[in-house]
């Protein structure tokens, strides 16, 4: 008796469509959310590149820079992330000068909301003769995916831009 009931239930074709919809809906949704998060991620990654280059370029236009100007240009670098929030925005700006052994010597440094990127500074060793300089800007942006955050941690984008002073070999601190 039970067997026949079970057998009948298995063979019952009523409601197959809604069942399929219920099964497929999550797949579609995951796909959609995945593309959404991925798209945002790529956009933010590109914005991180832009932001670091903007900051490096703005610094390189000066012979020397004071705290007000520096503040303004950091705000400028943040604007690159519009319309996304900037609470996870971090920046590390270093102006270096090469010493007689062609090692980078930090003239000034401004780091906000992120650890200092010493690897980037070390990476330029030997690049230019004494007296030359480079501006190194690292921008970091922590991206919290809207949906995928339940499966993954924040994704940190980090980009480094290198620029050379346009008007003088080094950009000095005029604060």
């Amino acid at each position, binding site marked *: 008796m039970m067997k026949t009931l079970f057998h009948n239930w298995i063979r019952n074709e009523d409601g197959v469509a809604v069942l399929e919809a219920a099964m497929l809906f999550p797949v579609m949704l995951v796909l959609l959310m995945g593309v959404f998060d991925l798209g945002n991620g790529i956009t933010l990654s590109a914005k991180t*590149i832009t932001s670091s280059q903007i900051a490096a370029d703005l610094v390189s236009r000066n012979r020397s820079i004071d705290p007000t100007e520096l503040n303004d240009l950091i705000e400028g670098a943040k604007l690159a992330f519009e319309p996304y929030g900037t609470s996870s925005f971090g920046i590390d700006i270093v102006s270096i000068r090469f010493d007689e052994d062609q090692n980078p010597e930090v003239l000034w440094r401004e780091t906000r909301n992120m650890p200092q990127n010493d690897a980037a500074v070390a990476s330029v060793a030997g690049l230019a003769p004494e007296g030359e300089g480079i501006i190194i800007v690292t921008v970091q942006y922590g991206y919290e995916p809207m949906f995928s955050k339940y499966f993954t941690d924040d994704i940190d984008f980090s980009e480094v831009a290198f620029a050379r002073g*346009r008007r003088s070999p080094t950009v000095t601190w005029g604060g």
Partner: protein
Amino acid sequence: MNILEECTNLKQILKSFIRENAAATAVAFAMIVPVVVGSAGMAVDMSMAYMVQKRLSHALDAAALAAAAAAKTDDDVYAKVNQFFYQNYPSQKIGATYDLNIQIVGEDILVSAKADYDTSFSRLLGVDQMTVAANTRVTREILGLEVALVVDVTGSMSTNNNIGTLKTASRAFLDTLCKDEYCSSLVKIGIVPFSAAVNVGPYGLGKNPDGTTYDTAFVNNSYGTSFDQSKSTKWWGCVLARTTPQDTENYETGWKWDMYRNPYNSNKNSGCNKSYILPLTSSYWDISNKIDTLYASGNTLSNLGMVWGYRVLSPEAPFREGASWSDKKVRKVALLMTDGDNNIGGGSSSYSGYGPWTTLRLTDHDLDEKLAQTCENMKEEGITIYTVTFTSGINNSTKDYFRNCASNPGNYYDAPEQADLINAFIAISRELSNIHIKE
């Protein structure tokens, strides 16, 4: 149909969907999956490629700007572009770069590169790679300016106080390039007064005006004398030209000049104008004071003035203040101004920068040709030349020589009146201040 009926209708549709057993959704979904996944994947790949392109163009911009700002020679440009490009676009980043191409066209630096992005999703549709390209063009900024003012201080300049007008014009020139009595270290001005000879001053014997050491002496002191303009028995600073063609050339190792010693006069300096050369300097007051002390006397040998302007601008001895010839960041400019036609004088007791006239028997035309040759040599080295003929007494042949000497006809100014001379100097200095970046 009222609302109630509508609801009943919907209810029925829903009921029939729930009881529906045709199982069409899965089939339809299976059919559209490749399309949905494919287009989503394409969209992702496209944005990735866009990102690669963004990085590529930023890296190119940074590299070209760095090269434009830092590089002095063409080789420097290639090196700097490479350095900054790969620094900004390290190989571990997505997208393999290749075809970094650097071109230098005049003052412009053109850089282009490509990058291949290996697709993640589109490869299912047979697209394995997307190639993006970017290019940028940056104009090199002229940062430095070196000007030699080669000015006529011959006797005729005392007429109508033309020498006073020259001083006014030169001061206006100086004040345009050096605002507020301060010259940027990027601007250097030298002054070469000329008449029948050029006076190299104490520098000839290796001394600065204050007596300290300047550089190696470049004047033969076979008379064992010293530089002293207050005594007629001493040397006032004028020198003789070297033999042809060296009197139109810059410098070669070992060159020295002979002192101007006029044998036809008890004062061996007779005919030597005491106004001597000011080597290139950024000191506003040194330039200003030199302008103040310009003094008019002697004949006109403009070719000698010009060739010393050449030597003042050049990085080689005897005056070594000039930037290297290969330094594209510095523009070298000579401004030659005269108030008369070349005039060697001539006669049995005539003496000039070419020694006793009877030795070479040069004509005024010879001097014109020597001037033309000097201008050619200077232009070949990349010096920009401006020329000014002053007063209404200049003949057409001299005007032609001066017009041809200028880098282009627009760089030649004819100034018949005193006001014209001042205007010409102001026009030239404005033009020059536009080509270098102000601090």
